[in-house]
């Protein structure tokens, strides 16, 4: 009889009817898991630099535990060596000594407090480790492809055995801390994956050679960890189903499937199916990859092993994993970034509140932050990693006010529902007939940008539920402000687009929004003025139509406002679509059929074009003086304050929504 930790009955919930396969139990080892949902172990950099658990991390985990509604909730992987060679993130939790058990117990207790199953992960970061020391360890001394990572040195045979023992000792501490499931991380370039891969393992001792030899360290770890965990604690492993390292002679997909079989033989109770390494040259999880793209890998894994298969990777909505479970191609839906964006995502699915889910937009800012030693943050969830901070929690307003928000874009909408939830009377005005602001147009850019609209859809629902009143097709004027005389005005009008000198009456100079919305006529040879994200988006939009596009922008590099974990995708797309970018430049003159580009150091050259698209932006000063003259409390947010990105708009809106 399998062990049951907490009783859950989902039968009365709408989500269990809509997605019956996600809310049915599954046995993992000797443990019965009530549903098919797992918050996958995710680094958050929230712990202290000595590896001790902080209040911030406990609160972060508690909210994710609430989200999985009885399912699996894994804390971030712990590093296990005192030297810190296995530490990949400055705020990574440690487990190389008994002194860490007390803090780890706080996490296990927080997860149990939400009646969820607490998962513990052992993670030596190997090739992507040594974040605080000079060099890392690995099966062989293979140079780093990416300079951001530290040099690697080959472990001696004795060091390998010591590393295996470190995993076993850490597992013992995890059990002592009260965790219910044990997981070994062998993915994305971490140590176990380094041993398994032909790319990084060139050893000739028993830990190298053919695929069996390369898996020997993994086998010893699984067996050792199983022994200390006993029969009631399932032991699983995360393994690459495809390394995507063919360009550097990594494992073949067949070899990867062999690693799955070997892990199963060694006693693993489940496998979490992943793909790609951090140094793979192929995209895996960015917005340009379609949802559900990788489910075939889970299916293939299931064809090769009998133990349960789990998978995350571009599965942001419940429909696809539910179907995959029904079809026998998946056992457990892992969730990572979607629960960074909305910790209660699966709970909302269960309760039939899918419209209240704040969906991840797959921007990878969370990852970019981790690699730059910064605490976790989310592009569109301002509360992320601030769950412990009272200042980030909406509280009832001390004085209820009538608030006029000008602009129904992401900044205004975020502010609107937060303020309304706090008890204010909120009116949102927009000259357009619908919500979304500039995002309506920006989301028409190619390569998955339509997913950005999920942010506005969420905000619209929240506004409606909080009683926000909308006034569409209503441009705010000084007369309207004087008539309404609200207590507070929030200007979320979006940016203004500067006019190129002498271009006022020209129909060959058009605005980025008009181009994306199809209002403006664009010729075949186009110059886009502005090399930030809006410029790149419209350049790709036009290049996809077969137009010859050149970007001219003042920033030193194109897309400097896009986080590095995503920017590389855009750079490849610009190249693939034949878009030339002149950075550190400006438009000096606008002539007939050409512009004169001037570089930062004074060189001038002509670029032929029949249309110039303006994507440069400036802060919007309109209405500011009028509001101030009336003595009304004023806030300016989003691109109206300083043109930036969607994230800044949402975060601005949230913070001002809390402050009013």
């Amino acid at each position, binding site marked *: 009889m399998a062990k049951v930790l907490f009783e859950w009955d989902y039968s009365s919930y709408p989500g269990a009817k809509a997605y019956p396969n996600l809310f049915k139990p599954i046995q993992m080892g000797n443990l019965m898991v009530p549903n098919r949902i797992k918050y996958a172990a995710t680094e958050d950099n929230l712990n202290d630099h000595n590896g001790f658990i902080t209040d911030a991390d406990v609160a972060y985990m508690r909210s994710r535990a609430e989200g999985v509604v009885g399912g699996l909730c894994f804390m971030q992987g712990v590093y296990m060596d005192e030297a810190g060679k296995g530490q990949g993130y400055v705020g990574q939790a440690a487990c190389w000594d008994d002194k860490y058990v007390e803090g780890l117990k706080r996490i296990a207790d927080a997860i149990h407090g939400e009646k969820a199953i607490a998962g513990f992960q052992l993670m030596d970061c190997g090739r992507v480790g040594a974040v605080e020391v000079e060099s890392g360890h690995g099966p062989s001394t293979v*140079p*780093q492809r990416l300079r951001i990572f530290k040099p690697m040195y080959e472990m001696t045979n004795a060091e390998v055995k010591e590393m295996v023992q470190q995993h076993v000792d850490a597992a013992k501490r995890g059990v002592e801390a009260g965790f219910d499931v044990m997981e070994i991380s062998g993915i994305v370039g971490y140590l176990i994956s380094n041993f398994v891969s032909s790319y990084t393992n060139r050893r000739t001792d028993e830990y190298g050679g053919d695929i069996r030899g390369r898996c020997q360290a993994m086998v010893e770890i699984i067996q050792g960890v199983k022994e200390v965990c006993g029969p009631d604690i399932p032991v699983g492993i995360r393994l690459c189903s495809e390394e995507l390292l*063919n360009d550097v002679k990594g494992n073949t997909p067949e070899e990867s499937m062999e690693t799955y079989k070997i892990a199963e033989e060694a006693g693993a109770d489940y496998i979490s199916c992943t793909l790609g390494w951090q140094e793979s040259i192929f995209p895996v999880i960015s917005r340009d990859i379609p949802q559900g793209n990788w489910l075939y890998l889970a299916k293939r894994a299931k064809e090769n092993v009998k133990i349960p298969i789990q998978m995350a990777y571009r599965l942001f909505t419940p429909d696809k994993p539910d179907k995959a479970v029904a079809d026998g191609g998946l056992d457990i839906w892992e969730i990572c970034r979607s629960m960074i964006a909305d910790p209660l995502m699966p709970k909302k699915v269960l309760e039939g509140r899918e419209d209240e889910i704040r969906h991840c937009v797959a921007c990878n800012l969370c990852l970019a932050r981790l690699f730059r030693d910064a605490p976790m943050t989310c592009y569109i969830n301002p509360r992320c990693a601030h769950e412990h901070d009272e200042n980030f929690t909406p509280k009832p307003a001390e004085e209820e006010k009538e608030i006029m928000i000008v602009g129904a874009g992401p900044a205004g909408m975020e502010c609107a529902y937060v303020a309304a939830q706090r008890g204010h009377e909120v009116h949102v005005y927009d000259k357009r007939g619908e919500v979304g602001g500039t995002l309506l147009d920006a989301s028409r850019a190619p390569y998955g940008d339509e997913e950005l609209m999920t942010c506005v859809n969420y905000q619209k629902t929240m506004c409606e539920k909080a009683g926000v009143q909308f006034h569409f097709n209503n441009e705010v004027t000084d007369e309207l402000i004087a008539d309404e005389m609200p207590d507070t005005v929030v200007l979320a009008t979006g940016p203004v687009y500067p006019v190129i000198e002498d271009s006022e009456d020209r129909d060959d100079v058009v605005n980025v929004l008009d181009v994306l919305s199809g209002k403006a006529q664009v010729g075949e040879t186009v110059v886009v003025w502005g090399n930030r994200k809006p410029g790149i988006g419209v350049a790709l939009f036009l290049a996809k139509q077969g137009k010859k596009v050149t970007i001219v922008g003042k920033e030193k590099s194109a897309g400097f406002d896009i986080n590095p974990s995503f920017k590389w995708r855009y750079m490849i797309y610009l190249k693939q679509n034949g878009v030339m970018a002149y950075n550190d430049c400006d438009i000096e*003159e606008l002539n007939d059929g050409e512009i004169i580009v001037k570089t930062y150091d004074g060189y001038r050259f002509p670029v032929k074009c029949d249309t110039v698209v303006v994507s440069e932006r400036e802060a919007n000063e309109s209405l500011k003086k009028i509001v101030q003259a009336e003595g009304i409390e004023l806030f300016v947010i989003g691109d109206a304050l300083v043109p930036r990105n969607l994230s800044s708009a949402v975060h601005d809106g949230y913070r001002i929504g809390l402050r009013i």
Partner: protein
Amino acid sequence: MPVNAEKEITKLWRNLHNAQSEICKTFYRWREVAIEVAGPDVKPLDIALKAAEMMGKDMGKNFLPRLNWLKGEETFMMNLGRALAGIWVTEGGTAMAEKGENPGEIFIRCTRCPWPTAAKEFGVPMEEVALTRERLFQTILEDVNVFFNINLKIEMLKAIPRGEGEYLLKLYKEE
């Protein structure tokens, strides 16, 4: 104001050449500093070779993200040869990679090199220039070899500073 293309290109070209000539001069200025700091017991050639090794090691790291085994060994070798020739071109030389007669063999030919001219200004022996160039390319290959698990060698067959009219380097795979 219309663009005067000739003027713009001339200005740009002149500045590029100035920047290129500074590369060699900066190297030799640092060589003088290192010789003085190291004292009379250290041979200038040893200092220059050590510098070539350290620079080559670092330049090799830049090669790793740009090389791709998926394109096949022949293309891989040609791309590597072009990247090595590209170092000379950046410095103001004229160089190209050519397929050799045998498979797995690439020749890098440089017919114009700024290093001997700069070396003369600083009183550097010509043989040192040749040896330093060869060492630089050899150490670039070190990380490339380990990373891709291959065994490539590079050998200098001719050198301008030796009065042979051109540099000729053979890049080949050692079985």
